[in-house]
């Protein structure tokens, strides 16, 4: 039996040995050099801004998660734009927002189905790269929207608003409501969420400005974009920091759960909440005074712009290089910025004066 046990060890060792013999030694510093000398894997060929829009294109939308209210709206926007151009729309995706292996599978699925372009909101900046590069080398155009991948893995990124605008404006919004004094906390999504982390970075930077000297960020909590967990995290924040005056939740799931908690608690109206939410989610909380103001871009427009960008790429009007511009139907002209980023515009602030005008 002892002999047989060593068999099992040998079996496992086999995997190790083969995986190691695949290549020689390397460390991070030695490959960093190699990486910096390699040419950037991007745009080849030239753009023809006056090229006609090709017909019969299919754009596959791959959101972070299907059946997620936010992506339902953005992808419906993509559908609207594609339908108006006479192109085809389809949507695939995973039921969980942290199933990166599943999302990678769907890139492969779309490639096998020979779509003209993929519009994807990446769950992870790195995990999709290999398969997206495969798709691009098969002639499929790749646009990221909402959440970007590494820039070399797509042709263009349609950004909801600049991270800087969003991060700083949320702090400003809460600062005004609190007269720039008191303890505040952030209730984010997953600890790895690309967007939220970028925004939080700018929030922290904004808080360094002199007018925020009396505002202190005491904690960043993570609710994983899960309603129940966000609810509990809010509860935990208020127990841990009895003097907390405000919460910023830069995620639609988080702000709704936090509002729900505040609404039913003694803190209603005393602890101020802002962040990113959808008008439909937040309407009742704005009307009953739990929340004064919050902000967001229009996810439907984001999806539309992603669709127009995908069509412009597939038609050869743009390649994703900085400085190129194209017309996104009725949305007007957009110019591509550094690293292929196309920005939708400044966020909209929703409060009791305007919330009734929005339905999404």
């Amino acid at each position, binding site marked *: *039996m002892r*002999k*047989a*046990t060593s*068999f*099992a060890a*040998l*079996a*496992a060792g*086999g*995997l*190790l*040995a*083969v*995986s*190691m013999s*695949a*290549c*020689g*030694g*390397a*460390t*991070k510093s*030695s*490959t960093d050099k*190699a*990486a910096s000398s390699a040419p950037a894997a991007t745009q080849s060929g030239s753009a023809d801004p006056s090229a006609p829009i090709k017909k019969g294109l299919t754009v596959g939308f791959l959101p972070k998660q*299907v059946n997620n209210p936010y992506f339902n709206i953005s992808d419906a926007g993509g559908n609207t734009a594609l339908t108006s151009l006479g192109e085809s729309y*389809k949507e*695939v*995706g*995973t*039921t*969980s927002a*942290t*199933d*990166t*292996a*599943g999302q*990678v*599978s*769907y890139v*492969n*699925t779309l490639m*096998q*189905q*020979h779509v003209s372009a993929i519009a994807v909101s990446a769950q*992870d*900046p*790195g*995990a999709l*790269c*290999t*398969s997206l590069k495969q798709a691009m080398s098969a002639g499929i155009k790749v646009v990221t929207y909402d959440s970007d991948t*590494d820039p070399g893995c797509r042709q263009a990124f349609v950004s909801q608003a600049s991270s800087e605008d969003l991060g700083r404006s949320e702090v400003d919004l809460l600062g005004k409501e609190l007269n720039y004094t008191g303890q505040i906390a952030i209730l984010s999504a*997953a*600890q*790895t*969420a690309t967007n939220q*982390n970028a925004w939080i970075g700018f929030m922290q930077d904004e808080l360094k400005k002199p007018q925020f000297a009396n505002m202190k960020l005491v904690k960043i909590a993570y609710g994983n974009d899960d309603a129940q967990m966000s609810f509990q995290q809010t509860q935990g924040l208020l127990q841990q920091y009895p003097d907390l005056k405000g919460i910023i939740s830069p995620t639609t799931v988080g702000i709704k759960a936090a509002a729900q908690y505040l609404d039913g608690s003694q803190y209603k109206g005393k602890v101020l909440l802002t962040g990113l939410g959808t008008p439909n989610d937040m309407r009742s909380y704005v009307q009953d005074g739990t929340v004064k103001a919050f902000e967001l871009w229009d996810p439907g427009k984001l999806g539309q712009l992603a669709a127009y960008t995908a069509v412009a790429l597939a038609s050869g009007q743009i390649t994703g290089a900085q400085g190129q511009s194209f017309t996104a139907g009725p949305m007007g002209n957009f110019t591509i910025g550094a690293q292929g980023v196309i920005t939708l515009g400044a966020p909209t602030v929703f409060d009791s004066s305007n919330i009734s005008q929005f339905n999404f």
Partner: protein
Amino acid sequence: MADSTDTAPATAGAGLRRPALFGTLRWDAVVGALLVVLLGISFSTVDGFGNALNISFLIGNTLPVAAIALPMTMLVASGEIDLSVGSTVGLSGAVMGALWNHGMNINAIIVICALLGLVCGLINALLVTKLGLPSLAVTIGTMALYRGVAQIVLGSNSVTDFPQNYLDFGSGRLGGSFLPTAVLPWLVLAALAVVVLHATGFGRSVFAVGASAEAAWFAGVRVKRVKLSLFVTTGLVSSLTGVFWVLHYASATYSNATGLELSVVAAVLLGGVDFDGGRGTLGGAIAGVFLLGTLQNVMSLADVSAQSQTVVTGVLLTVSVLGPRVARQLLPSTR
């Protein structure tokens, strides 16, 4: 257990009947046949299925489950289970990413990850064998524990800049064929696992322990040592899978392979390995793994929504727990 007599609590290899055999109808054969039928239908009718790229993709994506299913089959056959495998994969990847960020040599990192897997497995093993705790409860605990440690180790970072030749190993193909490069070590591992479980005294003692630990002990099987070696092997294979996962998806995050344990257990049960221990075959488990993997690939290509896919998988798993039992009921004489 009434039928424990046919699972031969033997020590050395006297010519005893293989435990999982029952008559001509074997559930693992049914699953294998289902896989063949599904592949046949997919090749002939599903657009975009039967090309080298898609097949290599299917196999590459299924490899993590396929690798861990090997030791998991043995564990379940011995009457135990390890639900911490997904977290061990995540922890191994997180440590890999963190050490890589510190500039350590990649080969040294892989060795450390392997050792880490041994430790993870050993913790499970000692809690189960020394303290006599049920493995289901223990490994639910360590599942949370290992994932938590992964989160502490790597935080919110996502490490992607591993050396290209290693990434190529993780996601490359054998010269444009339908086989991913990483299938080679898996084949070696699978062959060894089949030999160990189905053609050695150790393998027979695994089944004996699963059928009745007490009877096995009286027959001279060192029950705790068998279980300990299985948990440790599972930990090791999981951590190496963690290394593969990072290279395959070019991404080390603490949340790598979240929920993988359920896919592994599901595939193993679908392959006819008895949840109560004492019976099952690796062939069945491997067929189960690839049946689920192929089904997922095909359903996506056929535009079946993710929600419906979950329902189909759920139904299949329920059937898989029922199926072998019904099959045994139908063939009582061959028990």
